[in-house]
């Protein structure tokens, strides 16, 4: 091998550097044009009003944002989304954590089978499972049939057309679909914890509760933080379930923000400016909540 001169070495270094940029350019450009550019456009759009080609800047410029505060359906969708967030995310994460700690027990048998079964709902598409739940909870669906036959109900209860039951069914459906998903994160996190720590804790006479709060929870903190951020992000963007399970009903009582934004943009006369303003609010909420969660996550150290 000939010894490269210093000058040639530099150029090789530079060529590698350039190669790196070429390799990452397609992906980086796609993210620029498919995420950041549309995001900026959405911000500009959120200050505009009108339809189609006749969009113009609103007067006053924040008109769309003011309109949001007076839009009862929007406020309802905001409340619903937060209701789902506040009830469903904590319940789901706690359930997933409990299931994962049980499945991590060495003495447990049929571990693989249990894990597969609980993880199975993740194999279904969102539209598919929403349709299954809609059918199960229909007036003439299986749940009503069972409840009436058991004598718990006198007559079928209209789960999907009563305000609170419709909301609760969305929460139940979400729990069903996503608990196993989060459990898998915790399982993989638990596998990184040395099992001998648990054995040592046992010898020292730690109760299962102590073991959980003193060992498992602190060591899993990064994973818990990640799943919390992901679930929050996902719940704020909830769409498929609201459309296919309850159709936002009854009378928008269970509609989510994304569903309402979709309706505003593509279902009725398109109001792109107003819809963009609402979507920008979701973006800000996602950013704020992620920031808060990361701060809270840091503090416990």
């Amino acid at each position, binding site marked *: 091998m000939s010894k490269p001169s210093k000058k040639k070495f530099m150029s090789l270094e530079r060529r590698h550097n350039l190669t*790196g940029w070429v390799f990452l350019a397609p992906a980086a450009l796609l993210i620029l044009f498919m995420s950041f550019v549309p995001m900026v456009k959405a911000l500009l759009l959120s200050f505009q009003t009108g339809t189609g080609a006749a969009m113009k800047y609103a007067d006053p410029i924040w008109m769309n944002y003011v309109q949001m505060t007076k839009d009862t359906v929007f406020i309802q969708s905001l409340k619903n989304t937060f209701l789902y967030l506040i009830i469903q995310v904590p319940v789901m994460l706690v359930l997933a954590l409990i299931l994962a700690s049980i499945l991590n027990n060495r003495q447990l048998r049929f571990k693989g089978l249990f894990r597969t079964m609980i993880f199975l709902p993740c194999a279904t598409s969102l539209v598919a499972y929403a349709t*299954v739940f809609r059918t199960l909870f229909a007036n003439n669906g299986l749940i009503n049939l069972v409840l009436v036959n058991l004598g718990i109900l006198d007559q079928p209860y209209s789960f999907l057309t009563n305000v609170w039951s419709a909301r609760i069914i969305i929460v139940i459906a979400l729990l069903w679909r996503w608990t196993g998903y989060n459990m898998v994160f915790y399982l993989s996190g638990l596998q990184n914890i040395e099992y001998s720590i648990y054995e040592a804790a046992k010898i020292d006479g730690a109760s299962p509760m102590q073991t959980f709060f003193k060992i498992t929870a602190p060591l899993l903190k990064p994973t818990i933080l990640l799943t919390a951020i992901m679930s929050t992000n996902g719940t704020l963007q909830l*769409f498929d379930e609201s459309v296919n399970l309850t159709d936002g009903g009854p009378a928008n009582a269970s509609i989510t923000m994304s569903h309402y934004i979709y309706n505003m943009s593509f279902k009725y006369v398109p109001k792109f400016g107003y819809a963009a303003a609402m979507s920008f609010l979701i973006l800000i909420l996602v950013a704020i909540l992620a920031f808060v969660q990361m701060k809270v996550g840091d503090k416990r150290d």
Partner: protein
Amino acid sequence: MTKGKKILMYGFLIIASFISVFPLYWMVSAATNKSADVLSGRIIPGGYLVENFKNLLANQDVFRALGNSFKYAIILTVVSMVICSLAGYGFEIYHDKAKDLVMSVILLAMMVPFVATMIPLFQMFSKAGWLNSTIGFILPTISTPFLIMMFRQSARSFPHDIIEAARIDGLSEIAIFFRMFMPTMRSTYAAAATITFMNAWNNYLWPKVIMTDAESITMPMVVANLTQGYVTDYGMLMLAVLICTLPTAIVFFCLQKSFAEGITGAVK
């Protein structure tokens, strides 16, 4: 473990498993039953599958929707694998301060909710004539921060010695990537492809926005159309749901380990 604790643990797991599996079992069994039997509470499989299938075909163009879904999901998966792994490899192997900065900007894109970009994307794509097209379906989700991060993580474990040796042997940088990195990282690709395919297949909002033509709709859209049309034929409806679920269920069963690695992959 004490006996009581054992019963509690198994009891909890059995209930959780039952709740997880029953709706899926019911979906399969309802797909083989007459609507009237489904309504009367029959939960064991029946012999009405073929009849339901005929009704479904008469009602919706299932084969075309399946074809579309497969086409969009497979093309997206292949393109996405190449673009994202190339980027992850580029970020890690040739990393310097500037590239690390670009990476952290890309990670910020994870926080951008899809609804916030959906309307401008729709406007851009309709101007470009990409509605009802494969390119329209795949373009927004080819490059994702998650996959780039996953491949960057796997490139970290790729031995530098191999790269040096290949360079001495006179392999070009791109050849090293395709002939050394790609075959070595087969399991990362399997995990990434599984997660990408499932996400693409299940995507509902974006195709609902851009597939304005009945010719271009996807399988989840067919299922949604069936429920919106006041269909009360539950056997037929559940068959459509089953058909929509089968491809992802098969991928799930064959590649369960990859899928689990895929969703947790970028975090390690």
